[in-house]
């Protein structure tokens, strides 16, 4: 009996393999042929700008804190007008696992994942991207948001001048 079973198993195997001769091939001839991933595919990370053209990243250190690979580092600094920005910002893509936690943690929509998955390199130091290489000239997936229009500290508008704010209180006023 066992001999019969073995022959059946063998024929089934051949049949399964043979079927594929008549199916369309799934293999893609990379790199001649390239797939277009979905827009939410998580690959090369960029730093975006707000709709007014300013750098979105305020160097809050949340992405570097959440990063499980510990591959983001930066130094915050302040401009004369009080705007906080990253004096330098560095992602080590040789360590990044493209988990997307950084993009999720970012309170200003600055750091975003793009579908560009072709960033392999033989020289490890070239996988360490600096701010200049990360910063793009657009808003990425979030065309509307400008953090400073909601933050209440008066950078793009005077203090109390954002739509969701009252003008500053006059402490000496007598009217309630």
């Amino acid at each position, binding site marked *: 009996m066992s001999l019969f079973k073995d022959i059946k198993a063998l024929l089934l195997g051949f049949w399964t393999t043979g079927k594929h001769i008549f199916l369309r091939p799934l293999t893609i001839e990379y790199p001649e042929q390239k797939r277009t991933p979905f827009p939410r595919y998580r690959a090369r990370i960029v730093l975006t700008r707000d709709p007014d053209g300013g750098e979105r990243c305020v*160097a809050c*250190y949340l992405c570097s804190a959440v990063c499980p690979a510990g591959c983001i580092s930066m130094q915050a600094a302040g401009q004369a007008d009080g705007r906080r920005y990253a004096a330098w910002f560095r992602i080590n893509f040789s360590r990044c696992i493209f988990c997307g936690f950084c993009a999720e943690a970012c309170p200003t929509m600055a750091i975003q994942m793009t579908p560009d998955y072709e960033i392999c390199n033989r020289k490890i*130091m070239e996988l360490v991207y600096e701010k200049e290489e990360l910063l793009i000239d657009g808003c990425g997936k979030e065309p509307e948001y400008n953090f400073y229009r909601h933050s209440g*500290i008066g950078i793009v508008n005077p203090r109390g001048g954002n739509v969701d704010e009252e003008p500053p209180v006059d402490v000496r006023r007598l009217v309630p």
Partner: protein
Amino acid sequence: MIEAARKAGIVIPHFCYHPALGSAGACRLCAMKFLEGPVKGIQMSCMIPAQDGMVVSTTDSEAVQMRSLVIEWVMLNHPHDCPVCDEGGECQLQDYTVAGGHAIRRYKGKKRTHNNQYLGENIRHEMNRCIHCYRCVRFYQDFAGGDDFGVMGRANLIYFGRKDSGVLESPFSGNLVDICPTGVFTDKPARFRARYWDYDMAPSVCPHCSLGCNTVPMARYRELLKTTARFNDKVNGWFICDKGRFGNDRVNSPERPRYPLIDGERVGWDEALEALVRRVGEVTRQYGTESIALVGSPRMSLEGNLLLGQLAACVKAGLLSYFIGAAEGEASMAASLLVGEKSRSMAEVREADCIALFNCDLLEEGPMMALAVRQAWRNGAKIFLVGVSSPELKKLPFEFSAVDLIDEVPFAGCKSPVIICGTASADISAVRKAAGAPAGVTFLFNAPNSFAAAMLAVESQSPAVSEALAGGKIKAVIAFEADIPADLPVGVELLAVADWMPTDVGRKAGIFLPVTSHLEMDGTFINNEGRAQRFKKVMNPGLPIKGLDPLLHPPRVHGKTPQGGDVRPSWQVIASLIERFGGERVAEPLDGKWAALRNLDPEGEGTRIS
């Protein structure tokens, strides 16, 4: 109730309550459900004294809901600026907002805003973030006696600040940074520099005067960014002074020496130490070991100063000294000899009922002592200022009566009188007088480890450096972290200096050895009352990344030791010199009667040595 719960290991959320400032009932966050006992229902636990028979629930659904509504209400006007707020990550409001589960804003109205004030170069004001807990005024006015900062307005207009923009006058103003549960007051020099989770920090001791207040210095990328207070009931309590908090520059100074030098040329450690041994040998052959002076320092750790004695024995040095000026040394030595049982801690000063300020400028020589005296004064103690009533004395934060002589102070009727006596004027008769009076004594010295240096000087009977140098016999001076005058007598042939600060005498030294500051090593200081306290290494030594070229950019090369990071604690340098001079290998600097200090808990209260 809040304290009773804390003792039982239950944390009740709170903003306005603070152990040093008491309760105010202002924030409404500590709401608990009182189930049994004299009061019932939802009550503020900071306002109800704990009693027997009370049953209180922190998790009762009504209490939980009350607290989450309080948070939502507090957040109505809170700006949306955590990402650019320096308190973020160490903010009580953030923590309790997350804990209360408030994430979505339901209120659609507009937010109240305020204009900020300029409060000086140390503290940054951002009034939008205020939650009206009144901690700042209660600290500034009640606890610290400041009168240029307060609360103004009413209802929704309420404002915490000065009458007009201007530098805060209180020498304790920096504590606003610690005490405000939100980001209204933040440390300006550290503005935008780092987050709590990125700091290198460790329990440490303030090096700026002899009181030895407990601190937590916070550093990142080998740069000391800010210093915060650490609780020690026996010493500083909850707070520190502005000198201790904002005196961070000298550790970060770009002038700091980082490399061993022989006659100004950069060399390796082995080369420098060998050269030192060789040159000491040359001087010895010519003039005898009598001509060699070893100088310790009241700002060097106890470990270093102790080993210096062993090194002196090894080279049979003619002079082992810990003080520069004769008078300063004598006054400190006398003070350390005289205190013994009569020594009073800052905690005991806070409890005293009669305090005489003798021979000192309190806010100059030990600012936190003034705050301690103020607490005694608030509790009804009588304060006497002896001798001086000069207008140059900084404004003391308490009332006092001026008397001419220490004998006029009525100690007799008091239960716990204390004399606070300075040694800066190096007046030995004052020191003797203070020690002889029928009261406890607290001396103030000029450096964090003066007490230890004085003790060792007494033990080794050592005279001051200036005296010995004037004698003309000294031909070689080896100084560790000592502030010796740069114009040494002509006869001195060898000058070797080990220091972490750039000093004039260091620049003149034939052999220079760079050592670590107290933030880059473990060590021990003995404070003004004779309390040994351990400080831990906070950060790695080396040039701060910020100072490196290209500007603000960390290097893209890798190595085990950072640039300028090959510096060693003084005691290790002394230990290796001991070995090179033929002494025994030192495994543990605290030996003999000091061995008891080996396991000193850096987070404990310290140990009084007698």
